[in-house]
C-alpha cells in the first residue's frame, strides 16, 4: 500500500465516513470502516475519526459493529467524553434479542477501560449475570472483574459477590470457571475467593466438564484448600488421580502441584504421586512442541532432586536429536548426568561424546562439562574421552576440556597424572580467557610434573603486554610464583620480568597490587613465601558432598509448575559460572564451579553425631527448612565494616527490646580446640567450601585472634538474608573462649564509609568451659530455622577443622 501522509489518509477516511451515500450503502460503509481499522493496525494515528466511528457503531451489521468496537477500544482512553456517546448504543445492544450481539456489547463496554463510564456499565452487567444465554453470562462475569481492575479501590458490592458465588453452580462450565477467576480478582485483598468444603467438592465433581484451561484454573485455586480430615484428603486425592495421569501436560502439572500441596505432611504419598506422573512426564518430553518438551525437562529436574532413581530406566528418552534446539539439548544433558549408573555409563558417555562436537559451541561445552561431572564417579573412562577430544584441535573444545579437567582434578586428585600428560601442547589451542586461566591454574598446581610448564609460561609472559583479560594476568602471577617455588632455576628470570612489568607498566591496580605483594613476600624469604603460596591442590573432602542426597519434596514443591524451574536453567548454564577452583591465593576469586550455592542438608547429616557437646540441639529427626549459603553478591570490607558497627550499636542501645525487634539474638558455645594451630588458609578454604567468606583475620598465634566473616543465606521461602559475624579468641593459658557474633539483615547492602581496623567490641563470656566457643547470632528478619541451619553449618566446619589438625 502506498504510504499516504497520514493526515491525508485520515481526511479522506473522514470524508468517506460522513458521506450519506456511503452510510446508506451497507457494504460501502463497512469497507470504509475496514479501511480505517487497517490504517490503525498499520500504525497510522486515526484517533481523529472517533466521532465518525461512534456514529458508525449504530448499525445492524454485526461485522461493522465488531470493527468499530476494535477501533473504539483502542482509542477510548484518548476520548473519554466522546466515549460517553457510545455507551448508549452499547446499552441498546445489550437488549438485543441476539445473544451474540448482547455478549459483544457487554464485552466491549467493559473493554473501554474508562473509569468514568463505570456507572453506566454496572446495570447491563448485572442484567448480564442473569441472561439466558451462557455466552452472555461468561462475558458478564468477567466484566465484573474488569470493572474492579479499573477501580481497585472502589467498594465491592456484596450483592454482586454473592451473585458470583451463586453462579459457581451455573450449568455452563466456562461460566463456573470465569466466576472463580472474577472472584479471585475482585476479592484479591481478602486473599481471593473463599474456598470452603462445599465449594471444593462442587468444583472437584465438575472438574471433568471443564476444558484444559478451566481445569488448570480450578486446580490452582484449590491449592488453598485444607481438607478437614485425613479421610477427606484421601477422597480428594482419589478424585484427582485421573487428572494426575492426564495426557495434557498443563493439567497433569497442575494436578501434581495440588497433590504436593495437599500431601505436604505425607511424604510417602507425594513420592507415590511422583512415580505416577513419570509416564505423562516422559510423554511430554517427547511432545512435538519444543517448549512443552523444555518445560517437562525442567520439571523432571525438579522431581529428580527428591527421587533420583525416578527416570533411571528411561535414560534413552533423554538422548538428543540432531535438530533439537540448544536449550533442550543442554537440559537433557543435565538430566543425563543425574541418571548415570554402572550399567548405562558406557552408553551414556558414548552418547555425550557425540554431542561434544556439536556445531553449537555452548552445547559442545555443556557436553564436555557433563562428561567432567560423570568423571567424578567414573574418572578413567571420562578422562579417556576428554584427552581424545584434545586431539580434535578445536579451540572451543580444547578450552572446555581444560576447564573441565581443572574442575575434575580439584575433586579427584587421582586424575592428575593423566591430566598433566594431556596438558602438553594445549596452550596453542586456547584462545579464550577462561580456558587459559584454567590452564594456568593447572600449571600452578602441578607445574613440577608438566615438563614444558616453564616454556608455556614464558610464552604467556612474552605476550603479557597484549593480554586483555585481568583474570589471566592475576592467574599468571600466581602461577609463575608457585612454579618458581618448585622449579626456581628455570623460572627465576621470567618471574623477574613479569614482576617488573606488572609493577612498572601495568595499569590495572589489582594486578599491580598483587605483583607488589608477591615482590614483598619474596623479600621475606623463601620459607615465608612457601608458607603463603603453598595451597591445596584438591579437596578430597568434597568427594563426600558430590553425591546429592534426596531432598525433601517440600524444598521445591512451592516452585513446581511456575516459571522458576524454567528460569533456573538460564542461570546455571551461564558461562560466567565457570572458572578455576582457586581457593588459596589471596585474591578473592569466586569459588565457582563447585556450584554457587551449597546445600546444607548434607552437612547437617554429618553434623548430627558431633554436636552433642554444643549447647545447641539439632533434633535429628526433624529436617531443617531448605537453607543454602552463597557468597554473592560480594561484600566489600568497607560495607562489612559499616554494617558491623551499625548492628553493634543497635545491640548496645536496645539490648532489652531485642526480642521485639525484627532481628534476633542467639548465643551458643561450640567446641573448637584448634584455633591456635589452624592456619588462616585452611580456615578460609574450609569456610569457602560451605560458602562462608572470611573477610579478614589476624595472623596465627597472635592474641586476641579474630576472624570476620559473612555469607548470605538463601531460604526457599523467604528470599535471602545477609549474615555478618566475628570469631574471637582470647588466649589465656589453656582457657579458650571465643565469641561469634553475627548480625543478620536484609540482603540489600548498605554503602559503608569508614575504613579502619576492625575492632568491634566482642561479647565474651568467661563462663565457658575449656575449648569452647561462644556463638552469638543475631538475625533479621527473624527466622529460627535459617538461624539454626547456619549455626549447624558453622559448627560442622569448626569441628572438621579441629579433627583435621589434631
Amino acid at each position, binding site marked *: 500500500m502506498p504510504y499516504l501522509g497520514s493526515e491525508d489518509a485520515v481526511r479522506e477516511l473522514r470524508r468517506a465516513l460522513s458521506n450519506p451515500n456511503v452510510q446508506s450503502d451497507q457494504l460501502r460503509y463497512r469497507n470504509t470502516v475496514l479501511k480505517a481499522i487497517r490504517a490503525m493496525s498499520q500504525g497510522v494515528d486515526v484517533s481523529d475519526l472517533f466521532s465518525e466511528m461512534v456514529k458508525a457503531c449504530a448499525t445492524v451489521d454485526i461485522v461493522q459493529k465488531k470493527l468499530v468496537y476494535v477501533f473504539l477500544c483502542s482509542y477510548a482512553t484518548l476520548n473519554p467524553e466522546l466515549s460517553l456517546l457510545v455507551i448508549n448504543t452499547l446499552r441498546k445492544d445489550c437488549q438485543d434479542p441476539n445473544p451474540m450481539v448482547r455478549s459483544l456489547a457487554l464485552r466491549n463496554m467493559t473493554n473501554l477501560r474508562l473509569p468514568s463510564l463505570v456507572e453506566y456499565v454496572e446495570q447491563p452487567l448485572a442484567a448480564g449475570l442473569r441472561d439466558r444465554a451462557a455466552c452472555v453470562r461468561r462475558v458478564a462475569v468477567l466484566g465484573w472483574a474488569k470493572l474492579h481492575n479499573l477501580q481497585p479501590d472502589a467498594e465491592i458490592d456484596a450483592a454482586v459477590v454473592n451473585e458470583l458465588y451463586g453462579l459457581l453452580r451455573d450449568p455452563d462450565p466456562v461460566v463456573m470457571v470465569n466466576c472463580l477467576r472474577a472472584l479471585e480478582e475482585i476479592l484479591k485483598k481478602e486473599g481471593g475467593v473463599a474456598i470452603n468444603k462445599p465449594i471444593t467438592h462442587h468444583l472437584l465433581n465438575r472438574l471433568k466438564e471443564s476444558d484444559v484451561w478451566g481445569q488448570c484454573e480450578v486446580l490452582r485455586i484449590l491449592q488453598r484448600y485444607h481438607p478437614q480430615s485425613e479421610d477427606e484428603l484421601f477422597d480428594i486425592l482419589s478424585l484427582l488421580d485421573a487428572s494426575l495421569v492426564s495426557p495434557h501436560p498443563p493439567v497433569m502439572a497442575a494436578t501434581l502441584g495440588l497433590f504436593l500441596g495437599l500431601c505436604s505432611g505425607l511424604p510417602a504419598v507425594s513420592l507415590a504421586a511422583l512415580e505416577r506422573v513419570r509416564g505423562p512426564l516422559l510423554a511430554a518430553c*517427547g511432545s512435538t512442541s519444543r517448549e512443552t518438551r*523444555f518445560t517437562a525437562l525442567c520439571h523432571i529436574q525438579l522431581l529428580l532432586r527428591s527421587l533420583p532413581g525416578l527416570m533411571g530406566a528411561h535414560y534413552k528418552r533423554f538422548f538428543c536429536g540432531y535438530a533439537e534446539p540448544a536449550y533442550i539439548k543442554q537440559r537433557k544433558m543435565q538430566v543425563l548426568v543425574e541418571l548415570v549408573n554402572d550399567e548405562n555409563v558406557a552408553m551414556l558417555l558414548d552418547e555425550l561424546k557425540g554431542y561434544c562436537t556439536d556445531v553449537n559451541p555452548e552445547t559442545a561445552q555443556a557436553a564436555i562439562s557433563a562428561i567432567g561431572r560423570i568423571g567424578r564417579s567414573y574418572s578413567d573412562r571420562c578422562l579417556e574421552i576428554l584427552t581424545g577430544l584434545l586431539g580434535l584441535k578445536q579451540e572451543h573444545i580444547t578450552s572446555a576440556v581444560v576447564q573441565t579437567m581443572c574442575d575434575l582434578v580439584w575433586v579427584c586428585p587421582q586424575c592428575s597424572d593423566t591430566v598433566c600428560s594431556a596438558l602438553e601442547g594445549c596452550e596453542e589451542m586456547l584462545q579464550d580467557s577462561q580456558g587459559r586461566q584454567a590452564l594456568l591454574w593447572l600449571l600452578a598446581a602441578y607445574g613440577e610434573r608438566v615438563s614444558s610448564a616453564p616454556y608455556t609460561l614464558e610464552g604467556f609472559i612474552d605476550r603479557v603486554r597484549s593480554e586483555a583479560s585481568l583474570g589471566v594476568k592475576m592467574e599468571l602471577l600466581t602461577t609463575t610464583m608457585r612454579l618458581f617455588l618448585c622449579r626456581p632455576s628455570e623460572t627465576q628470570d621470567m618471574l623477574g620480568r613479569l614482576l617488573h612489568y606488572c609493577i612498572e607498566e601495568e595499569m590495572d591496580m589489582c594486578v599491580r597490587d598483587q605483583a607488589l605483594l608477591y615482590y614483598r613476600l619474596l623479600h621475606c624469604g623463601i620459607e615465608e613465601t612457601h608458607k603463603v603460596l603453598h595451597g591445596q591442590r584438591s579437596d578430597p573432602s568434597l568427594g563426600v558432598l558430590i553425591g546429592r542426597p534426596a531432598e525433601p519434596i517440600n524444598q521445591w514443591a512451592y516452585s513446581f509448575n511456575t516459571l522458576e524451574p524454567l528460569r533456573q536453567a538460564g542461570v546455571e548454564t551461564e558461562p560466567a559460572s565457570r572458572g578455576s577452583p582457586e581457593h588459596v591465593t589471596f585474591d578473592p576469586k569466586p569459588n565457582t564451579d563447585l556450584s554457587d550455592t551449597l546445600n546444607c542438608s548434607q552437612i547437617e547429616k554429618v553434623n548430627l553425631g558431633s554436636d552433642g557437646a554444643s549447647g545447641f540441639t539439632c533434633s535429628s529427626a526433624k529436617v531443617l527448612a531448605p537453607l543454602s549459603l552463597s557468597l554473592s553478591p560480594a561484600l566489600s570490607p568497607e560495607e562489612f565494616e559499616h554494617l558491623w558497627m551499625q548492628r553493634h550499636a543497635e545491640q548496645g542501645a536496645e539490648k532489652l527490646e531485642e526480642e521485639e525487634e525484627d532481628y534476633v539474638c542467639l548465643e551458643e558455645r561450640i567446641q573448637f580446640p584448634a584455633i591456635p594451630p589452624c592456619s588462616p588458609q585452611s580456615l578460609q578454604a574450609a569456610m569457602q567450601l560451605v560458602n562462608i567468606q572470611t573477610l579478614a583475620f589476624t595472623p596465627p598465634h597472635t592474641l586476641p585472634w579474630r576472624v570476620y566473616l559473612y555469607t548470605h543465606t538463601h531460604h526457599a*521461602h523467604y528470599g535471602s538474608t545477609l549474615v555478618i559475624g566475628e570469631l574471637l579468641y582470647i588466649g589465656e593459658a589453656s582457657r579458650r573462649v571465643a565469641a561469634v557474633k553475627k548480625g543478620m539483615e536484609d540482603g540489600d547492602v548498605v554503602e559503608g564509609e569508614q575504613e579502619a581496623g576492625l575492632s568491634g567490641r566482642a561479647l565474651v563470656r568467661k563462663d565457658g568451659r575449656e575449648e569452647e566457643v561462644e556463638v552469638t547470632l543475631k538475625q533479621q528478619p527473624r527466622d529460627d530455622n535459617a538461624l539454626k541451619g547456619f549455626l549447624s553449618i558453622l559448627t560442622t566446619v569448626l569441628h572438621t577443622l579441629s579433627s583435621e589438625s589434631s
Partner: protein
Amino acid sequence: MLQTSHSIECAISDDFRSGGLLQLTIIFIFDSSVLICRNYKGDVDMAEIDHFFPLLMQHEEDGLLCPVLSRGNVHFMWIKHSNLYRILINELVSTTNKNSNASLVYSFLYKLVEVFTEYFKELEEESIQDNFVVVYELLDELMDFGFPQTTDSKILQEYITQEGAKLEVGKSKVPTTVTNAVSWRSEGIKYKKNEVFIDVIESINVLVNANGSVMSSDIVGSIKLKTMLSGMPELRLGLNDRVLFALTGRDKGKTVVMEDVKFHQCVRLSRFDIDRTISFIPPDGESELMSYRINTHVKPLIWIESVIEKFSHSRVEIMVKAKGQFKKQSVANNVEVRVPVPSDADSPKFKTSTGNAKYVPEKNMVVWTIKSFPGGKEFLMRAHFGLPSVENNELEGKPPITVKFEIPYFTVSGIQVRYMKIIEKSGYQALPWVRYITQSGDYQLRSNV
C-alpha cells in the same frame, strides 16, 4: 548480574502469593516488527514489547536462547512458528507478569497457532495482514481478560467466518454450540450421502546409533475421522482385542503398553471405563478421534547401512544399502533416503540399483527416491563427490541420515478397526471407510562421518 536475577525471583514469589495466573498479551511479531498485538488486561506496558526482539537477538547471540525471556519482572514466553517451504518466521509472544503455569501458556500459544492455521491454512505474515479483522475477532473470542475462553476451532468457525459476506445482516444467529450440551457439533447438519472415513495412521520414530544399535524407537498413532453424516449420529467404534487390552493395561505380559492415550472430547470416557466401548457423537468434518503412543522396540521398517568415506582434499564416497524389514506383501511408497554430504562437496556422481538419486546442494544432502519399495527387498546406492583441495575450516555438524516412507494397508502396532456402528434417529444407512497407513516420523540413523 546476580543482583538482577535475584530480584526476578522475588517478583515471582510475590506474584505467587497473590495468585494471579495469566497476564497475557499476545503479540505477533514478524521480522522484528509487531504485526498485531492484543493487550488483554491492560496493565502490561505496551512499551515492553519493544524490548522483546532485542532481548531475543541478544540471547541468541550468547547461545542462551530459551523459551522464557525475562526483562525485569516481565516474562516473555514465546514460540516460533515457521514455515519450512518458505523461509518466513512468525513469532507468537505472550508476556506475562504473573507467575504462571508454563506448560499452560505454551499449550495456549500452540492452540492459537492451531486455530489460526485452520482459518488461514498457513499462519504467516501475509495471512495475518490480510485477515487482521478475523484475527482480532478470534483473539477476542479465544481469550478474555487474560483467561482462555472458547478455543475449539470447530465452534469458532461457526460464528467467526473468514468471508465477511457470510455474516449477512440479520442472518447471524447464535450457534447452538456455544450453549449446547454437545458443544462440538451443531444441529441440523445435512448430507446427501452419509459417509464416514476412518484413517488409522501410525508414525514411526527411530533413532539408530552410528554403530547400528537402535537407541530409541516409538510409535505415535492416531485415528482420524472425516465425518459426513446428517443429524446427531451416535457412533460406536470397535477395535481389536489386542489393542483394547493394551489400552486398558490388562495382560501386560504379551501386548505392548500404550501410553499417552488421548481421546477427543466427544468420546464418553465414563462409558469407556465401564465396558471398553468407544462411543461418541462425532464433530462434523475432519477431527482426530484418538491418539496414542507405544514405546516399544520396533524393528526399523527400513534399515539403512551406510559407508561414508571421506578422503580429505580429494573426494567423498558414499555407499548406502536400504533394506525393507516388513512383510513381503506390503509395499512402501515414496521412499526418500536423505544422506548428508559435506557442504563443500562438488561434482556428484550416482549409481543406484533402483530409483533416483539427486544432489540438493542447498541442504547439503543427497536425496535417493524410490517410488515403490517391496518388503524384504534390498537396494543399493553409490555416490561420489569431489572435495576442494582447500579445506573448509568450519566445524560441521554430523547430521543423521533420515528416511521418509509410507506403507499403506499396514500398522506396526496391529491395531484394527473391527466395526463402526452408526445410529441416527432418522435411521439412514451410512458407510464407514477404513484406511491404514504406517509412515515415517522422526526417523534418524546417525552416520559415522
